[in-house]
């Protein structure tokens, strides 16, 4: 599936060059050029597949050059005598949406990148089968077990700040809410972004029935609520906000990849909400055996060793945790609602947040 990188201009660019360079005043020429153009469009490169192909749907950043995808692909292909094909979709919600749209005809074997807030919804679609893997994670700060969904990494949601701009960050929701009005926070929409939903559940874990009032008290600090994680994070990096809702592992990226140690996550006394990312096998997977092999591979040292410094999350195996992660905050308390609780209450809680924010 990896195409040679050396080709500078692929062959199918040519029709466009014809269109722009040749004089196109002759009608017949124009028509034939257009026809050739249109006919050449949908020609997809056919894959020469003599090996079985394992198709995995995941989110884009996983498969990007800097993400874990390429290394994991090489590692697994080295041991399975198969072709691993990552299909990158825009987000974890995009993955679930795609398999829901495709239903029983989905060409995917595995989806990788759902999180525990989505698993109950995913399980209710009836599109998944037990993973049957024997290896279990040993690095989760909470009990999590599922026959269907295999954890592959996890993290805490946290507010990230710039030490150069804010020397003393708030150490709890209480402190954040009562802080001076000049603290500016940017968060994500719980309806469209995983961290946004994480914050909603975090507030709910801490404040329960009082969450709506607390949201209202927090609102004056919130600069804006963005659609996705990147929008919020870049607003923060651009200086539009003092704190951004992200992961407790975000500073590790700046430290390890950029050598910048001025970013840190604020540790909150109440505790932090967790996100566990999982993979699952589709019921109608074309390659069920290969898929099961991959599920075992997930807990192996190779996969786990790649994850922390490419996906910037904690590995699910203790032994795989890199040195740079030592300096990260260690929450005393980890919150996690069960998948079923989230599925049952999410709509009501989102509505509660909406009305608290509009009030």
């Amino acid at each position, binding site marked *: 599936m990896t195409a040679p990188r050396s080709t500078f201009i692929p062959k199918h660019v040519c029709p466009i060059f014809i269109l722009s360079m040749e004089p196109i005043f002759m009608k017949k020429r124009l028509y034939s050029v257009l026809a050739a153009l249109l006919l050449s469009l*949908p020609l997809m490169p056919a894959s020469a597949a003599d090996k079985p192909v394992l198709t995995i749907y995941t989110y884009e950043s996983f498969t990007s050059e800097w993400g874990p995808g390429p290394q994991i692909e090489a590692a697994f292909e080295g041991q399975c005598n198969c072709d691993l094909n990552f299909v990158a979709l825009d987000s974890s919600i995009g993955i679930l949406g795609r398999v*829901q749209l495709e239903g029983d*005809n989905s060409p995917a074997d595995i989806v990788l990148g759902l999180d525990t807030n989505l698993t109950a919804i995913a399980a209710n679609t009836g599109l998944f089968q037990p993973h049957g893997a024997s290896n279990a994670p040993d690095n989760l700060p909470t009990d999590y077990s599922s026959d269907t969904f295999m954890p592959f990494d996890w993290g805490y949601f946290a507010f990230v700040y710039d030490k150069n701009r804010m020397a003393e960050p708030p150490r709890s929701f209480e402190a954040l809410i009562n802080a001076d009005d000049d603290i500016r926070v940017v968060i994500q929409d719980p309806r469209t972004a995983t961290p946004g939903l994480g914050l909603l559940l975090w507030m709910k874990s801490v404040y329960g029935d009082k969450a709506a009032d607390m949201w209202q008290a927090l609102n004056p600090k919130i600069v804006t609520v963005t659609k996705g994680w990147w929008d919020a994070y870049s607003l923060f990096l651009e200086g539009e906000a003092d704190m951004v809702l992200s992961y407790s592992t975000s500073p590790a990226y700046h430290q390890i990849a950029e050598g910048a140690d001025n970013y840190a996550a604020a540790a909150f006394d109440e505790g932090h909400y967790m996100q566990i990312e999982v993979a699952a096998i589709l019921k109608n997977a074309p390659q069920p055996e290969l898929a099961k092999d991959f599920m075992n591979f997930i807990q192996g040292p190779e996969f786990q060793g790649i994850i922390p410094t490419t996906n910037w999350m904690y590995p699910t195996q203790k032994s795989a945790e890199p040195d740079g992660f030592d300096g990260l905050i260690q929450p005393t308390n980890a919150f996690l609602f069960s998948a079923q609780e989230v599925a049952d209450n999410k709509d009501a809680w989102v509505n509660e947040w*909406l009305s608290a924010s509009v009030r």
Partner: protein
Amino acid sequence: MSVNTPLSHYFQSNSRYVIGFSGVFALLLLAFICLWTLFGTGLSVALLTQMMHDSYLAHVIVITVKQALLSVCFATIIGVLGALAFHRRGRFFGRSILLLTCFSAMIMPSTVAALSLLKLWGQSGLIAQTPLAIFLPDRLGLWSVVLAHVFFNAPLVMRVCLTALDSTPLSQRRSAALLCLSPWHYWSVIDWPTIRAVLPAIMGLVFLLCATSFSLVLMLGGGPSVTTLEVSIYTSLRFEFDLPKAAFLSFLQLVLCGLLLQLFGKTRHSISALSRPEGIFVTRADASSLLMRLCDGTIICGIILLNIVPIMLLIFASDLTSGLPLLMTERFWSALTNSVTLAIGASFFALILAFLLGFLAYEAQLRDHHWVVKLCDFSQSVFLIIPALVLGTALFILLRAHMDVSANAFWILMLGNGLLALPFCYRLIVPALVRHLGETAPLVALWHIPAMQRYATIIIPSLRNEIGFALGLSAALSFGDLGIITLFGSQSFETLPYMLFSFLNRYGAKEADLLALILVLLAIGLYLGAQKAVGYWARHTAQVKSC
């Protein structure tokens, strides 16, 4: 036939009427099928009653309308003022560059545009570092959404009004110059009637664009209190996967926008002067006074500050070098190819549809069938109001049993992007087409010119400006679009905006800067290239025929 048979009767063509009707019918049928498919996945009375009692939904409707109307007002005022200033100043150094740069805001990816706006207006932006900072509100909210909408749409209004002003008949302008009209008289006798003719259509379009705005609203709205129906449709579709709810909300949006469009009056014929060639500049009598010079200078500087400075800041602040390796990857070139072919395909598709609707409008006008003209006006904007994502989802569900949808993503995208560009194409092509069909009808009847020859030798060459502009704009819009592709895209089929969007999901996405710049430049290139190509082709055809 009796003596009373109107002359127009002789120019009617039933086949053209039928062809036009089939176009409108296909559009409305597609809209109906889309909503029906989604409703068909399980519309329940419970859902409807729940929606009726949803207080947040009521809030969403109110705020959607409010921000859209505010945006339209400001965009119109600024656009008209800008057009007047540019018109009064006539030809000056940098005029066309300024106009083009203004216009490029329209075709920028909205996330990038929002960031560029914040580089100027944001808390750590340029203005915040000046004493003017005290005037900046310290939270994003309604004002920032309206500002962004003005940034996007004022250039469009300006461009339309300016072309209308530049094409006022030479005789009028000469008389005005001879009579030494005062600025006020100039405005009330010449400028305002000219602008008034084009305003309803362009205001309607801007209203639709603002009411269905989505990424900008989420990024700059400052929270869920400033939102649009489009946001709710997106969340119910993507996050809740509640298809009937999404269909219901789309239907609501369709009704709401359809009704509100009536506020702006008829779209028909209103932009007829839109893309007449910019001709001779006559110095206006009111242009030379010091007050007017100051006034125009201020307005033009304001436009530069509003529309051009953010784009410049974006370019200067961006880190272009770290994106260079991207140009060596095959992934980039294949995304580029996909985007360009898609843009060209979609713009031709939109053009053909616009012609079909034009036929219908013309024939209906000959027959005094006013309701058909209304239908025409409505059907062209249906797919601006029904979100592309709804269209895409419905098509996916409909087609998945019959074909591998992902492998045919190209065609669905072309359809979707073409439909998205149709409202622009329609407004550019149809008024001119109707006018030309009317003007050439006696000639054609007299000489029995066959239909095909009529289009090849008369209509298309004389509409080359309109066609070039429409093709260019559609291609540019389609090139930058990030709608349906989020449903169908994957690394085996991606477009440049999708590639950009997928970069924006991880830490340190430095290549995004270069990619965004390439995206904007290519969109401008397509926009200009299409106009040049059509102009060249049409001129040459006309020359050949006249020999």
